[in-house]
């Protein structure tokens, strides 16, 4: 703890963000701490009025009563606005996810998605380096090839090859899923049975085979804690 020049002080005051962060020694008696607070906040004068104050008892836990009492003391004597303890630390998992999210921030990322609107007709072939988003239909005899995922917001009746040449994590999604043939990575599936009604379906690789499932029911990305760049 720093020496204030008029004796030993058991607290330190810092400005953190829009708050006043007060680090204190919770082992000291409360009246001694109040005395130190009076010295610190007396010098602040009107700067303490309506200020946000964080009382940090350090690494030790279980000082909620002390923080509440000192908070009441500060509010009554110096008119501070809001007093709280230090924010709780996040779990290791949450911290890791946040760190990864920040590392892979999409804010400055160049798009690798080819977005097309219209209809791919028989005999036409569309190739995308990574993901392909088709706002329209893929007709029988038409072909779409992508290095990543293929998403068709329409009727898919032609041939779709996703994850080319070897990305088996890719998916193929269509609102009306009736392809002639699909490929994901090195896997090929043909003659897929039509589902009753029109539901959004998607194909993915599981246990060395292509599986087709109802996209909304399966919701394959629901377990991701944060939006990730794909």
């Amino acid at each position, binding site marked *: 703890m720093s020496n204030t020049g008029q004796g030993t002080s058991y607290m330190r005051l810092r400005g953190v963000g829009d708050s006043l962060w007060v680090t204190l020694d919770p082992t000291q008696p409360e009246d001694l701490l109040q005395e130190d607070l009076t010295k610190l906040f007396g010098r602040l004068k009107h700067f303490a009025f309506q200020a946000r104050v964080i009382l940090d008892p350090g690494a030790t836990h279980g000082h909620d009563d002390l923080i509440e009492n000192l908070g009441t003391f500060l509010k009554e004597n110096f008119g501070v606005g809001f007093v709280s303890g230090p924010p709780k630390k996040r779990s290791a998992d949450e911290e890791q996810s946040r760190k990864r999210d920040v590392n892979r921030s999409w804010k400055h990322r160049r798009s690798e998605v080819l977005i097309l609107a219209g209809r791919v007709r028989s*005999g036409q072939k569309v190739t995308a380096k990574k993901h392909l988003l088709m706002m329209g*239909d893929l007709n*029988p005899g038409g072909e779409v090839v992508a290095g990543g995922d293929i998403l068709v917001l329409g009727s898919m009746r032609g041939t779709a090859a996703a994850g080319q040449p070897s990305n088996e994590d890719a998916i193929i999604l269509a609102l009306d899923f009736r392809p002639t043939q699909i490929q994901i990575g090195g896997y090929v599936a043909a003659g897929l049975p039509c589902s009753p009604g029109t539901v959004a379906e998607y194909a993915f690789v599981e246990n060395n085979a292509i599986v087709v499932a109802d996209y909304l029911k399966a919701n394959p990305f629901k377990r991701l804690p944060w939006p990730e760049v794909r």
Partner: protein
Amino acid sequence: MEGQIIVITSGKGGVGKTTATASIGAALALDGQRVAVVDMDIGLRNLDVVLGLENRVVFNIVDVVKGKCKLRQAAIKDRRIDNLFLIPASQSDNKDVLTPEEMVRLGEELHKEFDFVLMDCPAGIERGFENAIAAADEAVVICTPDVSAVRDADRVIGLLYARSITPKLLVNRIDAKMVERGDMLSHQDVVDVLSIELVGLVQMDDQVVVSTNTGLPLVMQKNSKAGEAFCRIAMRLNGHPDLPIEEPRTQKGFWKSFGQKIGLKN
């Protein structure tokens, strides 16, 4: 005012391009338009037979393009229908004998001579197709309600769009009973996939075979459902685009059943 050149195409063979060309051409001519039907199927000409004009062929389109005769010499006038002319294909050449550039020049001449020029395109998407669409202003894509015809029509539609020609769709040989049973694609299924403007629906009709074999245009045959449909299609192409499209339906009801039972109707 210059006429317009309409190419009748399909991609797939045997879907009724020649019948449609002859029928629509005859219907337009009966409506008072000066019409030329041009057989672009060099080496495999058929349109002269369908129109019953095979014994009057002297010159053909290759002769016109190569300057061996004039357009008016090659154009055979139909004696039954005023204003209907046939420009036949050569039976002894192959499709490479003409080029798209030559067809564009011929098209300029045809524009001046006729109100409507219907080009009967050969099957396929090679040189014959290129020649047929080179001078075309519009296109009618014929498609039958089967998967292979739809796929070929779709391919042709893509090629037409690539040449800035917006095609119209004619669904031919619809069998309403088979559609009802679920054994045949409905015209809505075809339109869903091809997604272009529909110009008409023509139902399956035995009279087509009679017409082809006798050389009497379908639109001149009495009681031909297909002939009536082609007449309506011709009207839509001839300035009445909003004429309602009649959907082929199976005839039902007591009198129909009764008539069938006592042998009055088929």
